[in-house]
């Protein structure tokens, strides 16, 4: 897929909760096709410690209005600066990068996200729905204050929620959710994105239930386009690179 470097204009910067915000970005150029799971490399200007671009998954795309959406969590200087951007300001992106999630075998697909890891699952849900699949979302958050755009996900499938403190949905982590105890054999694929411990637990659950599982990984990245080999991930086939061979990996390939 051809990659682009484009300036986007910020249409809105919507704060969803204390830690998360959504940037809506418009381009003068036609946004190319973006597959679920792909990401962009965002340039963060004016900060000594955000020298490199920041990889961010595509949350959603509106091809008609030519708008790209990013869901971002504030974790450090770079994301803090992004959180303060105002509409009208310019953001430079290199995109679309990485591989993408694949189609499930059966009808149903289970999309398990933790925290900001839900980001790539919105576009994935949209795509699955378009492919006449039936996505079901299972999300884990620390507490009800950190919930994310549940209504948007609801358009594509049912959303189950677990919170660490039980303030919304069930109390506990996603893999403890009762939904997982009642699933019948009709889930064609589990997709997961979130903290590594969560993804590992999800992958284990999927393996135990003989369901294929795809996980979207994060590593430190420099180039994002396969040139620097910094984003190494060990797999059963040797070293892979998260920015080109990933970020989506079949859980059985991963040595983690």
């Amino acid at each position, binding site marked *: 897929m*051809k*990659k*682009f*470097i484009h300036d986007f204009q910020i249409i809105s910067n919507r704060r969803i909760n204390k830690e998360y915000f959504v940037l809506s970005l418009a381009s003068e150029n036609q946004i190319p096709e973006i597959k679920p799971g792909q990401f962009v490399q965002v*340039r963060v200007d004016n900060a*000594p*410690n*955000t*020298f*490199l*671009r920041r990889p961010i998954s595509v949350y959603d795309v509106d091809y008609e209005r030519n708008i790209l959406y990013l869901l971002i969590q504030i974790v450090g200087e770079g994301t803090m600066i992004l959180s303060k951007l105002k509409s009208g300001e310019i953001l430079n992106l*290199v995109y679309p990068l990485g591989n993408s999630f694949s189609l499930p075998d059966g009808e149903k697909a289970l999309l398990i996200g933790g925290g900001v890891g839900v980001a790539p699952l919105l576009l994935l849900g949209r795509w699955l729905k378009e492919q006449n699949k039936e996505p079901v979302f299972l999300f884990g958050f620390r507490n009800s204050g950190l919930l994310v755009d549940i209504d948007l996900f609801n358009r594509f499938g049912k959303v189950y929620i677990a919170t660490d403190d039980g303030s919304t949905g069930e109390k506990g982590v996603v893999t403890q959710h009762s939904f997982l105890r009642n699933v019948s054999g009709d889930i064609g694929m589990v997709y997961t994105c979130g903290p590594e411990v969560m993804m590992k637990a999800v992958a284990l659950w999927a393996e135990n239930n003989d369901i294929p599982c795809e996980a979207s990984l994060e*590593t*430190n*990245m*420099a*180039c*994002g*386009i*396969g*040139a*620097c*080999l*910094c*984003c*190494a*991930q*060990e797999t059963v086939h*040797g*070293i892979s690179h998260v920015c080109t061979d990933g970020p989506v990996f079949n859980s059985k390939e991963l040595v983690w």
Partner: protein
Amino acid sequence: MVNLSVNIGNLHLKNPVTTASGCFGYGTEYEDFIDLGKLGAIFVKGTTGSKREGNPSPRMVETSSGMLNSVGLQNKGVDYFISDIYPEIQHYNTHIIVNVSGSTIEEYVMVAEKLNDLEKIPAIELNISCPNVKEGGMVFGTHCPSAIEVTTAVRKVYNKTLIVKLSPNVTSISEFARAVEGAGADAVSLINTLLGMAIDAEKQKPVLATVTGGLSGPAVKPVALRMVWEVCNSVKIPVIGIGGIMNVTDAIEFILAGATAIQIGTANFIDPCVTVKVINGIEDYLVDKDITDVNDLVGALKIAH
């Protein structure tokens, strides 16, 4: 019309702007962003005698105005390069220069010998300065007799342009430059990365799996510029300047210090089009200063006495 072309030994570059090894893949990665044919040359990835997996993850961490990497020469080996990569990239309308590494002198010689036969590879760059592999690389770059030995041995089997890439992690980089000049190098390139380290204070652990890594980016530019200037005052062969070049001003600074050509590394990660911008910028600078030949800028730094 200004002349941008320069010579490195017998090698004629259409302009002084090239890409640093390990930062530009095999060029293909950047084809969507720039016309590779505009570049003076592409220095491709470090290539060794046989396949190397490189170091474990994490291999990269950002630092103030820089980054540390510990990729560790991951590559599929020279034979794979010749059979699978070379055919794909030989059509580029620019020079492809292979960065050569090894753990032993024999390995360097073997790789150089094999590359010598490739028509479209007019030069190699001996990497005697990689800080990220246990044996080899760095030891040749920080021990002068070894640097001489490996250069002499490779010179014997390689009859095209031989560039030796120097390590900044030494007391006197000029000493190494003079040594490899004496051993038959056609040019030197510098600097490779400075050996550095990062710690995660929260986890109380090193950030990189290998503990230490190589520092690159604008943080190192003042050190690189000083070393290039020192080496230019010490040797007669051309010098290729590397280290923290982010824009045309940085490039001009290295040329003024005496570099005949420059390499851009880390900056490609931030702006994949940076090389072409620098080429255009050098042309604009020359026009603006009424200089018709970029060679007149090489070493043109005015020092008060």
